[in-house]
């Protein structure tokens, strides 16, 4: 694979998960999970119900651990919550959040929370995914694929160190899958951030690390 000429230098991204515990009311999802992740593309695998989405939300700061800790370059997800969240983004969920906004307002809101976002890249992503003209449509009225593309357009334009993408290929058309695969391949090669993604489909991009939750200590059967 060819890299861009002005390829960015590899950056140090260190995610430390120690003795992570998380429980739903009816069952335990993690009971002492330890992980060490770095820059690159991490493919998170596992059977349904093993906690892939829960782990992504915990890593993104959207859920609080019941025990243990998650640190991104030394920032604790609970103690330094605001700073931590500025460097992470959880991109997932098929039901739109903030569904009273239009797609344009939804993007503007996120851009105001991540001021370092690359606006040109966002515009380019919207064009590549063919959704540059949905700005005035309510987020709640977008199709599954359109909403997924909107999320991905934003996620791929944010300068976050830890990007968590839940089932990115669900609902995407063939052209959008191709666009996403190319972008992920470029990022996996440049290793400027850590991207953790879940997918039940085999990736066409070679992941840096494959993490199988079915075989991970600290994940109850």
């Amino acid at each position: 694979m060819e890299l861009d000429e002005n390829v960015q230098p590899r950056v140090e991204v260190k995610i430390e998960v120690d003795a992570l515990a998380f429980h739903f009311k009816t069952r335990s999802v993690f009971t002492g999970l330890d992980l060490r992740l770095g820059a690159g593309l991490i493919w998170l695998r596992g059977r349904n119900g093993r906690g892939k989405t829960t782990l992504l939300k915990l890593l993104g700061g959207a859920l609080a651990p019941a025990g243990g800790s998650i640190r991104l370059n030394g920032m604790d997800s609970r103690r330094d919550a605001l700073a931590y969240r500025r460097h992470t983004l959880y991109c997932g969920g098929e039901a739109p959040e903030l569904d009273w906004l239009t797609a344009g307002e939804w993007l503007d809101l996120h851009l105001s929370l991540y001021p370092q976002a690359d606006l040109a890249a966002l515009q380019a992503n919207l064009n590549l995914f063919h959704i540059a003209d949905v700005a005035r449509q309510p987020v709640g009225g977008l199709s599954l694929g359109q909403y997924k593309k909107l999320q991905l357009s934003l996620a791929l334009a944010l300068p976050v160190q830890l990007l968590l993408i839940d089932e990115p290929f669900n609902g995407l058309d063939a052209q959008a899958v191709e666009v996403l695969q190319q972008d992920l391949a470029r990022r996996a090669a440049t290793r400027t951030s850590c991207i953790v993604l879940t997918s039940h489909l085999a990736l066409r991009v070679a992941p840096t690390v494959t993490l199988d939750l079915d075989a991970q200590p600290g994940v109850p059967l």
Partner: protein
Amino acid sequence: MHTYTRFRIRLTLHTLAQLSARLRSSGEIVVLALGPALLGLLAVAALPPMVFTSYPPAPALGLLVLHALAMSLPVALLRPRILPAAVQAWLAPLPVPPALLLRASLLVSGLLVAPLALAYAASLAIWLLQHARPAWLLPLRAAAGTLLSFLLTWACACGLLVHGALRPPAPPRAFSTAATAGGARYVPQPRPGWWFLWRHLFWLPLWRQGSLAGLRQAALLGGTVLASALWMAGPALLPRPAGALMASVLLVLFVHAADDALRGQLARLHAATAGLPLMAGTLGWRARATLLAALALALLALTAGGLAAGAWTHTAGYAWLALAWMVAPLLVCTPPFTPRGRMALVALCMLLLCATGSKIWN
């Protein structure tokens, strides 16, 4: 009983249980404040159909039909709760035979109009069993007219439910006509600062997705301003204490509605913004401070109006003004405790404001 019918009945009982749980929290306060009025309402529940039956047949029938339609309005208002959009979406395409649908809807609407039947029965008994009946009251016709009105209400409620069960939920509507035009390319317009965030997270949801919160607050604010203006102006037709009563009640209701909407939105945002770089606690306090600032503007206008009308010249005036300024921080900053405690606080604010306000020009 068919599974479909059992499901519809269970859904209705669940909705009624939810409603009664909400009413139970404020039941004592409502009974304490409005007990005699509620008893009076029960006594006259069947009065309209009874009166209509004393008219000639043609207008009597027309009025009875209109009354029955009006009495089925609560069912129309309850329908979105009895048949929520999510249930409606998978209920509508089910291959339910028309007879089964009608039977289930009849039973469900029967459950909903049963309290009305009880109220009519009590009211009929009160009017027909009294010693000195009014001359216009013909027992047989009155009872038949009330029964007819009730049956029409039941039929109308049943029709509403059948229609609701057959109709697929409406797709999400665009927020404006411009949205439907499409084709508008996205131009990033992010702005730093609190106002941008507040507009997107707290202001826009008041007016979109069929929310009535914005309209309700606007109506209450308008009502408060109008009632206050009338109270200060003191027209001959409106006694000052009545003006004070209206202004006080509407002011508290306005503050309560604004605070209620804010609390609801904060709860909604708790999950929606969990992963975003926003701190829920800070967001909540800033939103409350913004609400208090907006309420302070309204109170400033009220204070200025009262000053011009000479309302704040005696102890009662000072007390009312101080209480009015305290209501907003009290309701906005007090933790919710329980719904019953909240209702008690709102009722206490109204009571104190009404009591002091009615003394200002006394």
